[in-house]
């Protein structure tokens, strides 16, 4: 299963490197939304700092949606998904591979976005460890839920509009916990003992487990 996952992730990232959707579309999208938020809220530095965790995670989740859609649109081209099934890959392996590639792309976006909120919004980094670890588990959660629902939505004709409707409500707890963990990370030195981080770990692992178990039926039926 791990070998299948590595092959899927490697293939998806190679396609991403060739098509440069992340570089040419996702990063500019992040930059534009970040600046627009700044315009909308105003140039008061304290306001920008206060909202920066929430803005960060809303943009991160919207970017993740685009990455998830992209991940499944490459399987829809030429019905490549049927090819994966015909090769007899472990559904759990396909799921893990997709999660890994989406996770990696989201982390790249989040690093770029993080630099944006630090340098444009003036966000402080009091507990870097908490920010990094909570970002990792929040991204794991959204990548897991997104991969599961991405496969479900990809089987319908309304995949582009259905995916946000499925993913955003399901990941609302992750969004909340990630925002709270980041608020703690910029306002105090609570570190990785933060209770919101514990919640993110639980959500991330539960979503990953549910996805691994149910992905086969979602993919086939």
């Amino acid at each position: 299963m791990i070998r299948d996952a590595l092959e899927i992730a490697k293939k998806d990232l190679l396609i991403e490197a060739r098509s440069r959707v992340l570089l040419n579309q996702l990063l500019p999208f992040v930059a534009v939304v970040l600046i627009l938020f700044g315009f909308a809220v105003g140039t008061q530095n304290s306001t920008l700092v206060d909202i920066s965790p929430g803005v960060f995670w809303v943009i991160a989740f919207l970017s993740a949606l685009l990455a998830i859609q992209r991940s499944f649109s490459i399987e829809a081209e030429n019905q490549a998904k049927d090819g994966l099934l015909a090769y007899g890959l472990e559904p759990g392996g396909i799921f893990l591979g997709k999660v890994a590639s989406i996770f990696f792309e989201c982390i790249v976006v989040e690093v770029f976005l993080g630099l944006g909120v630090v340098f444009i919004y003036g966000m402080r980094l009091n507990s870097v460890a908490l920010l990094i670890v909570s970002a990792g588990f929040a991204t794991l959660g959204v990548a897991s839920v997104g991969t599961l629902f991405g496969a479900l939505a990809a089987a319908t004709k309304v995949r582009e509009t259905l995916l946000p409707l499925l993913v955003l409500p399901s990941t609302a707890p992750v969004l909340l916990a990630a925002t709270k963990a980041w608020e703690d990370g910029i306002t105090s030195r609570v570190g990785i003992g933060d209770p919101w981080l514990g919640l993110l770990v639980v959500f991330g692992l539960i979503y990953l487990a549910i996805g691994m178990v149910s992905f086969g039926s979602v993919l086939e039926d």
Partner: protein
Amino acid sequence: MVRDAVVMLGHYPVLISVDFDAFEGEVVYLYGPNGSGKTTLLRLIAGYLSVAKGEAKVFGLDAKADRRAIRQYVGYLGHHAHLYDDLTAEENIRFAQRVTRTTEDDPLSIAKDLGLSQKTMNLKVHKLSAGQRKRVSMAIATMRRPQLLLLDEPHAALDEQGKDLVDDLMRRYAASGRTVIVASHEVERVKAASDRGYLCDRGILIGPEIAPSRANTTTKATVQPSGASQVDGHSD
């Protein structure tokens, strides 16, 4: 082996009370107008669809419940190429080789046998013609030397040389004891390369009929061939 099978797409029956058999070492053709159920039957055997009524077994395994096990023995060439546009033809073949753990043959030699040059192999799939894509898909479908090869319109988009290669491939497969089921609108061509066939008409399967090329040669092409073991592992 398909018995009394009904396949529904939504509320619409696409296959109605279908009986179908294929045996080792034979090529079985399906022909009929568009929308008559040929692709549906192939997808049913490949485990992409399930029966609403009746049963479908391949190598003795249930076509739906054991679909992952069945796919180890089945190569499927569908209407779509099942390829990644942003990867080269060679990268697509290498990817399929790795995930299917194919070690028997050099898959690129299979591609070359199908008329694909190294220059073509280095092109991204979205730059290939429809015929070249078909050849790449064919190389992937056959690289594992599957016991059962399902070909859906394999001649479409191919030139005459490519069509001859497909016919030759089907004959070689059957000669090596494997089974080929082919759906095609090139009726005369597939009949010439096949043993038996069925006409699909509005979801109903009529046959089997003996291919003209086999009609006066062997006793193999009968409704219940003696001595030939069925693809499902049983004999009638």
